[in-house]
């Protein structure tokens, strides 16, 4: 304190008379000082609180915005330069080369180093995405985002993703190649986490949300695989079917939602089929109690965040054998359709080591190339869509608390306990009960457990590693024998001109009952096995030299096994029909043809229905706008292009037509199933009736009186044109599809300002260029074309390699993707010669 009186700056000034500080009469200086201190304390506390603690809608300002460790580190993180650095755990030096578009090429001298470096590279560019995905599967989102994620966390822990991932890791033998791969990969991720901590370069989203990434473990990689399985094949369809049966009645429900599709299909495996090794299902009328308790569970699932329940898939792949290829080598094309996010689900890379020579796309958090090619084979996949989720109503009574009746005896549930930490709230304690069928996911009204193949501990990552190393169809199919879930249509083409397709995975079979509805859990209706591997849908070198899948039912009505119904499990078939139509044309096909077909906007359904509609309207009194719209449809090529006005008319017409026919039924029968959940089945029905059964009883809905299909079409058309005129103007020629149909690439953290779009784009749910919904947020997540004749490999995904929105690699591939172009998939040597390539040298 004496320093103040001896202050030179003050002492050097001429001495001034001592003047007491001015003060108001009646106030003592001491009180003022205390008031001043109180003010300082209060304001300081407020500033420190805002600096250290998050508020609703605002991060903690200090860690989030400080210029050294906060969100501004995005700027440094966005830079990728040549560098040489040490990486703990490496055995030999590793080289990572980046093309100017961010594609990574990892070259290692040992397999261990390859996967360690892959983990490091993934984490360098996608750590936040990886962390979000593992948190989703582990039920730990609430810990960082608060109670908004509590429903998701509860559901994930109930469903059992964490339990399954832990079991898979425990059961993975140390001798399995996957064991070392997962450990090496985890070390690479943790190397990056350590480096990011010490250099303050952890992804900015961590600082904005105010937490740090915990160490990565092999279980985390298995959790991410579990997330993907869930989003692709965990369904609530049996619950929807129960509600439909209850409200519509068994006769209408069976007629409208049949096992076999009523419309034209293009199965790729047309038989002949082997005799069934499992007896056909013995069907029985569903007990009433199977239908009564579905509503609360259906409603709960409907309220879950998107992605936790599979709502039907949409992906394409096909192959052309050497005999039909212009280049003389086999061709392969694949475009898996997923939720289009920023960052994308995919990370593109090539991986070179003594045991692996593979290029393609990987899912950050997992160490394998999931879709791609190696030196001899190429592969891609689509979702196979067979039923993999079964609901069981457990029999309980008050005399046996905590037990359920199964195979003539009372069994105790197994109970697991979890803690769910909640940001800004109390930790929630969750108990999950398991029966022999699986986890109990509802106890409201009745106790329902779920059998889901995603809960079968698998070694699917080891299968993918084996595929990455496969050199022929034999290797490929041997590897796939071990594949469980989700079932995928794996398409194949090799450097010897061969092609194949196999729908690998687990196909649960039940002894009796109606598996498309909830079933009694008393034992008689349990899953008793799967379809033998030799009998699952597959084909190799078919005589037509083409093979294709687009989530359609893979087999004909003669297939002897139950694999699912039309209700959500299989696609309506229009994309498959269109792909088949194009591939079946006479003449040879080229890689350019593959590329064009991937972005084909021809709507197969429109090509069937529009001529019928025009006939229905032929004698109808139309106003000038309606006549102009009819003229548009008459000259239309059925392509859903952004400039096409006819495409807008068709798009609205079909949606309104489905509504016109089914809405009166939904109202009069009080159906409590969202029509969107069964849209595919309704579309197939309406297509079939419109083409072949215009007097079907469905058109005579309660309250609308007797009418035919053409009557419903005319009424729908008038309404559509009136609404389009109102919304887009009175000149139908100006109703370009791009005005009403756009895509959005959604930021993974749900930050709307970091979305891309909306941007007009062609296609709809029925076209090979899949773009259902409005705005469309689902579509081709990776397009790849392989030509073994010229040994050219091309691909693109919408987005970029980096999750950092300040990086050039956040959206740098979007324009290429929208323009339907592909980028060459180079080797590491090829990439080194390109302009702007950057090189990392990592040393032990």
């Amino acid at each position: 304190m004496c320093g103040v009186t001896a202050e030179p700056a003050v002492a050097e000034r001429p001495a001034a008379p001592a003047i007491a500080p001015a003060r108001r009469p009646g106030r003592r200086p001491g009180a003022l000082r205390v008031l001043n201190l109180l003010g300082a304390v209060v304001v300081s506390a407020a500033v420190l609180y805002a600096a250290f603690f998050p508020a609703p809608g605002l991060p903690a300002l200090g860690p989030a915005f400080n210029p050294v460790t906060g969100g501004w580190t995005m700027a440094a993180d966005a830079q990728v330069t040549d560098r040489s650095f040490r990486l703990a755990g490496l055995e030999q030096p590793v080289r990572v080369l980046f093309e100017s578009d961010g594609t990574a090429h990892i070259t290692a001298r040992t397999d261990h180093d390859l996967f360690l470096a892959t983990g490091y590279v993934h984490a360098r560019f996608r750590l936040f995405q990886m962390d979000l995905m593992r948190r989703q599967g582990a039920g730990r989102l609430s810990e960082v985002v608060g109670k908004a994620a509590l429903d998701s966390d509860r559901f994930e822990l109930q469903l059992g993703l964490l339990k399954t991932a832990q079991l898979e890791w425990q059961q993975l033998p140390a001798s399995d190649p996957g064991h070392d791969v997962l450990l090496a990969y985890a070390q690479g991720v943790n190397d990056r986490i350590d480096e990011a901590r010490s250099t303050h370069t952890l992804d900015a989203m961590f600082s904005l949300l105010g937490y740090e990434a915990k160490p990565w473990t092999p279980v985390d990689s298995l959790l991410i695989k579990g997330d993907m399985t869930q989003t692709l094949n965990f369904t609530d369809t049996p619950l929807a079917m129960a509600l439909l049966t209850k409200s519509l009645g068994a006769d209408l429900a069976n007629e409208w939602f049949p096992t076999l599709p009523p419309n034209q299909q293009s199965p790729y495996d047309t038989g002949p089929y082997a005799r069934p090794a499992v007896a056909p299902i013995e069907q029985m009328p569903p007990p009433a109690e199977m239908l009564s308790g579905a509503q609360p569970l259906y409603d709960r699932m409907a309220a879950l965040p998107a992605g936790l329940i599979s709502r039907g898939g949409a992906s394409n792949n096909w192959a052309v054998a050497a005999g039909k290829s212009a280049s003389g080598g086999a061709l392969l094309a694949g475009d898996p359709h997923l939720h289009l996010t920023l960052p994308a689900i995919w990370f593109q890379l090539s991986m070179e080591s003594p045991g692996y020579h593979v290029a393609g796309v990987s899912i950050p958090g997992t160490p394998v190339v999931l879709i791609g090619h190696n030196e001899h084979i190429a592969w891609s996949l689509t979702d196979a869509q067979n039923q993999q989720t079964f609901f069981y109503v457990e029999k309980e009574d008050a005399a046996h608390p905590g037990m359920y009746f199964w195979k003539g005896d009372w069994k105790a549930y197994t109970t697991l306990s979890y803690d769910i930490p909640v940001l800004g709230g109390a930790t929630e304690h969750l108990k999950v009960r398991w029966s022999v069928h699986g986890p109990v996911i509802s106890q409201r009204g009745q106790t329902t457990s779920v059998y889901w193949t995603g809960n079968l501990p698998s070694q699917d990552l080891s299968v993918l590693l084996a595929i990455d190393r496969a050199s022929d169809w034999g290797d490929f199919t041997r590897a796939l024998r071990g594949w469980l879930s989700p079932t995928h249509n794996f398409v194949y083409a090799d450097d010897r001109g061969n092609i194949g397709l196999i729908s690998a995975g687990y196909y649960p079979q039940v002894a009796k009952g109606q598996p498309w509805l909830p079933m009694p859990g008393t034992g008689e209706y349990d899953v008793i096995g799967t379809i033998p591997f030799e009998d699952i849908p597959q084909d190799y070198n078919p005589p037509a030299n083409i093979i294709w899948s687009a989530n359609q039912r893979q087999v004909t009505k003669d297939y002897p096994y139950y694999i699912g119904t039309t209700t959500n499990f299989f696609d309506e078939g229009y994309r498959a029909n269109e792909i088949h139509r194009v591939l079946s044309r006479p003449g040879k096909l080229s890689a350019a043809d593959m590329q064009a077909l991937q972005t084909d906007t021809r709507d197969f359904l429109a090509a069937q229905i529009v001529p019928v509609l025009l006939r229905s309207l032929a004698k109808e009194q139309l106003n000038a706008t309606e006549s102009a719209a009819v003229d548009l449809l008459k000259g239309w090529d059925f392509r859903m292009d952004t400039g096409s006005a006819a495409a807008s008319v068709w798009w609205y017409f079909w949606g309104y037509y489905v509504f016109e026919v089914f809405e009166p039924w939904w109202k009069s029968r009080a159906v409590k199933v969202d029509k969107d959940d069964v849209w595919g089945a309704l579309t197939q029905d309406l297509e079939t009736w419109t083409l072949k059964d215009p007097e079907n009883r469905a058109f005579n809905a309660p309250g609308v009186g007797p009418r035919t299909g053409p009557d419903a079409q005319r009424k729908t058309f008038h309404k559509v044109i009136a609404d389009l005129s109102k919304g887009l103007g009175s000149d139908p020629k100006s109703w370009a599809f791009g005005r009403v149909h756009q895509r959005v690439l959604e930021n993974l953290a749900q930050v709307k300002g970091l979305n891309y779009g909306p941007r007009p784009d062609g296609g709809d749910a029925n076209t090979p260029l899949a773009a259902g919904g409005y705005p469309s947020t689902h579509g081709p997540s990776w397009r790849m074309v392989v030509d073994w004749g010229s040994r050219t490999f091309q691909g693109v995904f919408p987005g970029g390699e980096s999750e950092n929105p300040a990086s050039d690699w956040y959206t740098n591939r979007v324009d290429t993707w929208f323009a339907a172009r592909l980028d060459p998939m180079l080797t590491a040597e090829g990439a080194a010669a390109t302009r702007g390539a950057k090189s990392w040298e990592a040393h032990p």
Partner: protein
Amino acid sequence: MRLYITLLLAALATLAAVLLGVWWAPFAVGVITGAVVGRARVAIPAGAVIGFLSWLVPLAVAHGRYGLGPTAQALAAIMGFDHQPLVPIVLTLVVGTLLGLTGAWLGTSVRGVVAPSARVDAARNR
């Protein structure tokens, strides 16, 4: 001169700490500076300036090295202020300034209560 040296040392210490990741250093150093300097009319503006500079300098250096335009835009988007990149820049500098200002204010006011005679001594020595 001693005051200037004190403030300069405080500024350098704050900047060094911020560069090491101790983002709350403007507050902590502000408290000490405020307590040492004692005079609110000097210490509080000085604390604010030190806070401002200690967050501005690293920001300016980062801008010089990497360019902060895309980052500012991204942060603005995350905050819900699309296409207004100035918002995160201003917010950042305001936070740094407030940390320094409130720290210095707290320091001087604590000293005013704990050792009020020092203020009188200082006044007498002017």
